[in-house]
């Protein structure tokens, strides 16, 4: 499986990681190498096998739909790079 520079650019965009144009050829090669290594799975016959959803046979736990915690906006915001007036602040999103 060979990844082109364009595909590498697209995957970086989807992953929201800035990659300079000069770095794209090396990135494409690396990603191709890893995907090549993964290609060998193609030879496994998986006819009729269900994809695994959970490794231990257990039912997902349920609980009452009630509020169990909260009321601590200062603590929630304490690690934010930019917080103002009780909110997370980000660059302007809507013009």
């Amino acid at each position, binding site marked *: 499986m060979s*990844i082109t520079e364009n595909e*590498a650019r697209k*995957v*970086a965009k*989807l*992953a*929201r*990681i*800035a*990659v300079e144009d000069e770095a794209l050829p090396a*990135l494409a090669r*690396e*990603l191709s*190498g*890893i*995907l090549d*290594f*993964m*290609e*060998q*799975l*193609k030879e*496994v016959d*998986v006819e009729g*096998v*269900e*994809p*695994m*959803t*959970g*490794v*231990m046979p*257990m039912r*997902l*736990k349920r*609980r009452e739909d009630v509020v169990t915690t909260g009321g*601590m906006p200062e*603590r*929630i915001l*304490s*690690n*934010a*790079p*930019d917080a103002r007036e009780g909110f*997370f602040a*980000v*660059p*302007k*999103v809507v013009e």
Partner: protein
Amino acid sequence: MSDLNKLTVSEARDALHKGDVTSVELTDACLNAIEAAGALNAFVHGTPDKARQMALAADDRIKSGDAAPMTGIPLGIKDVFCVQGVASQAASRILEGFVPEYESTVTQNLWDAGAVMLGKLNMDEFAMGSANENSCYGKAINPWKIDDRDLTPGGSSGGSAAAVAADLCLAATGTDTGGSIRQPAGFTGTVGLRPTYGRVSRYGVIAYASSLDQAGPMTKSVRDAAIMLGAMASVDEKDSTSADIPVPDFEAALTGDIRGKKIGIPREYRVDGMPEEIDDLWQKGTDMLRDAGAEIVEISLPHTKYALPTYYIIAMAEASSNLARYDGVRYGRRAGLGQGDGITEMYEKTRAEGFGPEVQRRIMIGTYVLSAGFYDAYYNHARKVRALIKRDFDNAYADGIDAILAPTTPSAAFALGAMDTADPVQMYLNDVFTVTLNLAGLPGISVPVGLDRQGLPLGLQLIGRPFEEGALLNQALVLERAAGFVAKPERWW
């Protein structure tokens, strides 16, 4: 008593309970050892004041007759565990400055048991790596040495393994997604236990791949692993995958009697190019268990050779999803923005400068295998092969096998930087023996069994039945006793 930092957890516990030593003395011995071991780069955030405070409280608790087995025991904590009020950044620049407002369940359980926190330990960024070279703190160094080269302590729990092997703490926490507890234990002559998926809560453990991650103890002895797992494990409503299975007394399972137990030797683990020494060690371990009365059975786990690519597809897919949360908004680092940069540029620049190269690679591969048009061919296909890999183990256990014996790693510790020129896949091959059980959710333990010709430690791993860590630890105890591994790294740091 001298060299208190060299005690095992069980020795320290007994001495504490008899009143021969105090937690303050133990803790000071460890803090002094840490102070003198900067060259190992194992501890990356020290918490000496907290440690002394916790040690004083532990001594009071012991005096009042209310001691638990871990009360007063000084521990190192892998940087991946959130500890309230203490920097916790999974060795990543993107979590620079992050100080959790909450406590992971594992560390809370340990503090409730009276354990003492010495500080945070080095690791590979987000637990992605097999050499502890991918860390914003720089490489952790193996206390074992054979010449002037620095060796890797393994990864991702490299700081934990180095700290335990160098007696900087009595024991440490680790996490194991594809071998990150067992491989470093194998490289440092220490014991590393990865419990069954669901035995230990993942709440507050910075996530790498949620269906594979599991925390466990890294210790100087099998008995210590049993004691520490007992304190770490719990049924936790904060983790929906925490298993509703009571935590037994693991230490009580250590009878040393494994007569009649069936130990499987998987023929597919005899891989091409495996050094003869590893093969010899495996044979020696097999003989030890046979001599102890176990029945040795050759078994087949036919899908073994597909475990590595399956593991990397699933782990990277889950990582790309889990690490989407690092967006420069809620915690950690935000990149400086230029004039006119909007929110997309903020995400892209923050993640480009915050994540190291290996993490970026894994996120991008994960993104690719989950993207439209490739989801079925890669991710879904891998989940099907994973089901087959688990079925191999299910079949072996259904045939009456009690545990499986295999090497922990394909080599002894290698030199730091030795893999720099290799492509990423070469590094992934290090996990060839360890990833299978993560895919199947099973418990596994690495026990030091011997030294290679150069004098470096080598480990063997036992793979157990789900939720039967007690039996697994007992088998490991037999291996530990028969091997009689007592070598320690000569101090150079």
